[in-house]
């Protein structure tokens, strides 16, 4: 029973969306399969193509749906606005919006699956069209069906049924059909996009992923014209009236004389553009917004070098305002005209500048730190006219915005994942300076899990100031910090820690609350929080490694119950 409220809060919205999406796909597949497999206007088409017709058209309908849906989760401005508008909705609705990239991938997998079914069914169709020309017609064994196929294929002009007009090699026929060669281009673009989106490539060679993924422009461009030649054809209603299909299909030798005048065929209208035009326009608007933001001036106020290869950039942009825990995309034209990289803002909304802390890991970040003059040995400062131009897109909303709506929050950050919480804690500090406005948030349990000692000097200062201020205003119980060093210590450090065991302040962080060693016992922690705060909605916020995310998600479900509900929120870009 205790697990149920956890599951309802954390799992139900996701699974509901999944069920609806799957249901739509199944419905479209079955509906269009039956449409092409049973309707009388496709009777003759089925004579030529058999069940492969319906098997090709059904996935096409699913492809229309998924090509429409796949663009929507990437419209970050749209999602952020939706999220803002949804502040009055239950939390569960907003939690679903955090899974946008997962949904994008899900739609992509479905597109791949449906493309394969569509392609393999059309392989049969192409050969059905071309093989008509190879069946001998004058031998004794020629069947009625073969004669019928030949008669159908002979129909010419605009009333044709078989788009292949002469005996050609099947592979050549693919390139004669508009649907064929556009299909080849579309599928190859999809193929490239899929192979470079594999997690290893994304994490190791991000540029390969980023540039290849822009093939979606080619994909959508050719998708819209894929059906333009109307090569899937059915009999016109007028023709169905004056040509009795049941009788005439048994007597192809009578054609074209009455009672079997030649049937007249027309192509189906291209439908795909109707599905995808709206999301395409929305996405174009997103890119236009990005371009407009690119042209807006960003002033770099300060560049601060922190230990452990972390660089802080403080900037100002007119008209820019961000909520707690939001993120931005940063681009530096000097390094690359096309790359935008996401970073969480570490400044609070109350400050008059915005800041990001960038960890120097790969090529782009090292080049950026060089351009900012932060790679030198000494604390030299570049004059502002030498600073490179940068562009900022955003801010975009994520889960951390919601922290202030919960009475109790558990915030967990692993390593550099602590950055959204830097913004939060600073904001708490500023809000505390104004004691008239009472916060709904009454207690924050903050957990920072670091692999090593050197990772948090820049954060340590901020924590010390915050701790001081909270003591001064008598609110030292508002935030409880727990810092865990997971990678252990060497012999020298162990001695230092032992000697300073009795000190009032922790020897590593300088905080009053002591650093812990090893990994947290989440079961214990969640249990204690549940006991301390009965009948409350506790927000659990996490940013960091996937393994810890699963653990916390599990704990949130496990310890919910008896009035306490742990709502799990994970940060992702």
């Amino acid at each position, binding site marked *: 029973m205790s697990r149920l409220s956890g599951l309802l809060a954390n799992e139900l919205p996701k699974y509901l969306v999944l069920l609806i999406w799957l249901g739509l796909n199944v419905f479209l597949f079955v509906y269009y399969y039956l449409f092409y497999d049973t309707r009388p206007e496709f009777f003759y088409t089925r004579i030529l193509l058999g069940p492969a017709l319906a098997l090709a058209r059904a996935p096409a309908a699913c492809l229309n749906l998924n090509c429409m849906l796949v663009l929507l989760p990437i419209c970050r401005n749209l999602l952020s606005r939706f999220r803002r508008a949804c502040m009055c909705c239950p939390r569960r609705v907003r939690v679903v919006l955090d899974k946008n990239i997962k949904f994008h991938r899900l739609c992509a997998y479905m597109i791949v699956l449906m493309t394969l079914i569509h392609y393999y069914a059309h392989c049969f169709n192409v050969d059905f069209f071309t093989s008509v020309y190879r069946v001998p017609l004058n031998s004794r064994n020629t069947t009625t069906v073969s004669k019928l196929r030949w008669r159908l294929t002979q129909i010419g002009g605009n009333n044709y049924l078989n788009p292949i007009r002469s005996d050609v090699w*099947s592979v050549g026929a*693919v390139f004669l059909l508009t649907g064929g060669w556009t299909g080849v281009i579309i599928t190859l673009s999809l193929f490239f996009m899929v*192979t470079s989106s594999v997690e290893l490539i994304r994490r190791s060679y991000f540029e390969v992923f980023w540039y290849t993924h822009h093939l979606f422009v080619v994909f959508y461009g050719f998708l819209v014209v894929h059906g333009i030649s109307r090569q899937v054809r059915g009999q016109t209603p007028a023709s169905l009236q004056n040509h009795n299909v049941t009788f005439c299909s048994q007597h192809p030798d009578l054609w074209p004389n009455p009672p079997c005048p030649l049937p007249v065929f027309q192509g189906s209208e291209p439908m795909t553009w109707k599905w995808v035009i709206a999301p395409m326009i929305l996405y174009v608007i997103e890119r236009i917004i990005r371009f407009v933001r690119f042209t807006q001036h960003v002033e770099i106020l300060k560049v601060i070098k922190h230990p452990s290869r972390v660089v802080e950039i403080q900037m100002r942009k007119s008209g820019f305002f961000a909520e707690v825990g939001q993120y931005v995309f940063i681009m530096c034209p000097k390094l690359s005209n096309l790359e935008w990289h*996401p970073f969480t803002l570490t400044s609070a909304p109350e400050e008059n500048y915005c800041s990001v802390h*960038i960890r120097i890991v790969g090529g782009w970040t090292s080049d950026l730190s060089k351009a900012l003059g932060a790679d030198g040995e000494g604390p030299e400062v570049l004059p502002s006219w030498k600073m490179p131009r940068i562009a900022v897109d955003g801010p975009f909303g994520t889960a951390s915005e919601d922290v202030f709506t919960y009475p109790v929050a558990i915030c967990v950050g692993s390593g550099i994942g602590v950055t959204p919480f830097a913004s939060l804690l600073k904001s708490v500090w500023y809000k505390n300076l104004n004691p008239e406005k009472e916060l709904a948030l009454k207690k924050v349990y903050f957990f920072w899990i670091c692999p090593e000692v050197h990772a948090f000097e820049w954060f340590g200062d901020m924590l010390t100031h915050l701790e001081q201020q909270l003591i001064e205003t008598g609110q030292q119980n508002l935030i409880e910090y727990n810092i865990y060093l997971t990678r252990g*210590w060497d012999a020298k450090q162990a001695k230092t820690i032992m000697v300073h065991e009795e000190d009032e302040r922790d020897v590593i962080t300088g905080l009053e609350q002591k650093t*812990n*060693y090893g*990994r947290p016992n989440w079961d214990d922690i969640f249990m204690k929080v549940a006991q*301390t705060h009965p009948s409350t909605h506790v927000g659990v916020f996490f940013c960091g490694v996937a393994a810890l995310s699963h653990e916390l998600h599990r704990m949130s479900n496990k310890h919910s119950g008896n009035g306490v509900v742990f709502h799990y929120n994970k940060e992702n870009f």
Partner: protein
Amino acid sequence: MPSQPVKRSIQWGIWGNETALLGAYVLTIGGVIGIVGGVTQNFLFWLPIGIYGLIFGILMSFLEYPRGKKSKGNTVSRWHQSCFSSMVSKLPVVSNYYYRAFIYFVVCLPTLIIVPTFLGSVCVMIGCGIYFGAAAHGESWSPVVPRLQPQRTGGNVSEPPAQPPPRLPQHTGARYAT
């Protein structure tokens, strides 16, 4: 999230591997479709090329499945790739990407003549192109050797303890104060 290495240190062979592997899967399924169509409808050349596509698709997937070692950083292996990896490392020419690209290209040529295997072979050929570029960059395939023990950050660092060190009662009390 922080960004990753720029073009100058991209190991193209890794992407070539993904492309060729996915192409091999598509080719294998195309081979199956070719066999089905050849048997039921007797389409021209579907049956022989379908069998050919199936066999070589499977062989290519076996060759491509084990991921090569990344020159920088940790390589995430594919699930259970170690048996394939040991097999492939014993074969004579496959560690050289030039040979790999050429052999795959030649093997795929016959499958271009029927439609079901056409897509798979075009995808593998694109993989060949990427491998060719990787070989021109001086890359080659080497097996991923599993790490025998976890890496240490320094000589003196000991294993992190599972429990926090024992503290005097006043500290434990204060931390979990209600």
